[in-house]
């Protein structure tokens, strides 16, 4: 039976392709391809339908399929283009074959459905796999990228290091913060570490707990931790929650924290007097030689 159906489909491929393209065209206005040029859509449709027929003729030719799916992914088309396309193909083909046949019984229909499913299935499987593989790949790359961003440590000058935190802190990130902080303090032999939480949207007991622990650990390795960037609303919530951050100095902004850090390391910022004349003399003396 399967061979008969194949013969019908392949002999009448032009008619089926035309019907398929008509149906796909009627779908295009409603969704995905509104931003795609007609030529590109048409050529892709042609390619798609060729691939479907190719797969009916010689089951198991995955190379062409792979190239096609890569092209679609690169174009950024939604996976619904593929699922819709195959759905339409199935409908059109079944309709066509049923119209070609005179005697139809339930057995015939079930055989037909089975056959068409068998043609379409490998295509849909392969394409959807390619897509989801691509998504997973992107996700894992983004996770790595996020992790790289999660706990940076900046040695701004001798003895003073800054760790700016931006975004939500979860357990995993809290661990990273602690590790990087301690590694950094020892590596740069810092005396003062500023933790800047300006970019942390919510400071709940978990986040506070981790900060307190990090500050304690920093104290144990012989450095001082200053918590900076406490916004007014965060200050109020911390007080409401009843969290005790009294063990280490805190400041509202990184600037104030930095000045405090300089004080702690016996330094201060001094404005340099303009010494233009000295500079000119230097240039003159250089030019004279």
């Amino acid at each position, binding site marked *: 039976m399967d061979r008969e159906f194949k013969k019908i489909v392949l002999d009448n491929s032009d008619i089926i392709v035309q019907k398929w393209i008509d149906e796909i065209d009627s779908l295009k206005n409603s969704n995905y391809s509104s931003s795609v040029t007609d030529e590109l859509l048409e050529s892709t449709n042609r390619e798609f339908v060729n691939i479907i027929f190719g797969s009916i003729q010689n089951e198991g030719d995955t190379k062409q399929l792979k190239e096609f799916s890569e092209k679609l992914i690169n174009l950024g088309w939604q996976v619904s283009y593929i699922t819709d396309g195959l759905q339409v193909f199935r409908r059109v083909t079944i309709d066509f074959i049923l119209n070609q046949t005179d005697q139809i019984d339930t057995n015939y229909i079930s055989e037909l459905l089975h056959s068409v499913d068998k043609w379409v299935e490998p295509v849909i499987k392969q394409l959807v796999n390619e897509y989801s593989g691509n998504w997973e790949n992107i996700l894992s790359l983004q996770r790595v990228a996020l992790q790289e961003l999660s706990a940076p440590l900046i040695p701004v000058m001798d003895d003073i290091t800054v760790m700016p935190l931006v975004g*939500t802190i*979860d357990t995993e990130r809290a661990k990273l913060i602690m590790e990087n902080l301690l590694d950094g303090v020892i590596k740069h032999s810092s005396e003062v570490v500023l933790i800047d939480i300006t970019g942390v949207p919510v400071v*709940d007991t978990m986040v506070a707990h981790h900060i*307190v622990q990090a500050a304690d650990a920093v104290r144990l390795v012989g450095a001082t931790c200053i918590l900076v960037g406490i916004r007014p609303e965060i200050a109020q*919530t911390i007080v*409401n929650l009843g969290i005790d951050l009294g063990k280490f100095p805190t400041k509202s902004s990184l600037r104030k924290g930095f000045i405090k850090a300089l004080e702690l390391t016996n330094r201060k910022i001094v404005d340099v007097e303009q010494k233009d004349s000295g500079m000119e003399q230097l240039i003159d003396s250089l030019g004279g030689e």
Partner: protein
Amino acid sequence: MDLQSCVTIEKEWDIVKARQLGRDIAREIGFGTVDQARIATAISELARNIYLYADNGQVCFEVADELDQKGIAVISLDTGPGIQNISQVMEDGYSTSGGLGAGLPGVKRLFDQFDIQSEEGKGTEIRVMKWLR
């Protein structure tokens, strides 16, 4: 009361989802940034309790729109082990997980109304309410 929306808490990131939604709702009602931060923090505590102790549960939001005042209700529901001694967990500094123990008493201070019901082996329901002044 109208509009109820829920977030199911299963993973740690669901906590972020819950407080994001809560913050958005609070902003729509008209809460200022300080109250938004309070509400978001409290939701974070409630959702984290579900995540830590009950494995799964829900955080739901209701908008209260009455004649003279508006407000937000946050309901935390779980089917976890329940709380043995409620008065103990409402004390500052009590924690079974090595945390700060400021969670539930803190939530009570962050909100205007606080109701807790818990049955051992069945689960816990906490309902908190904050009014817009």
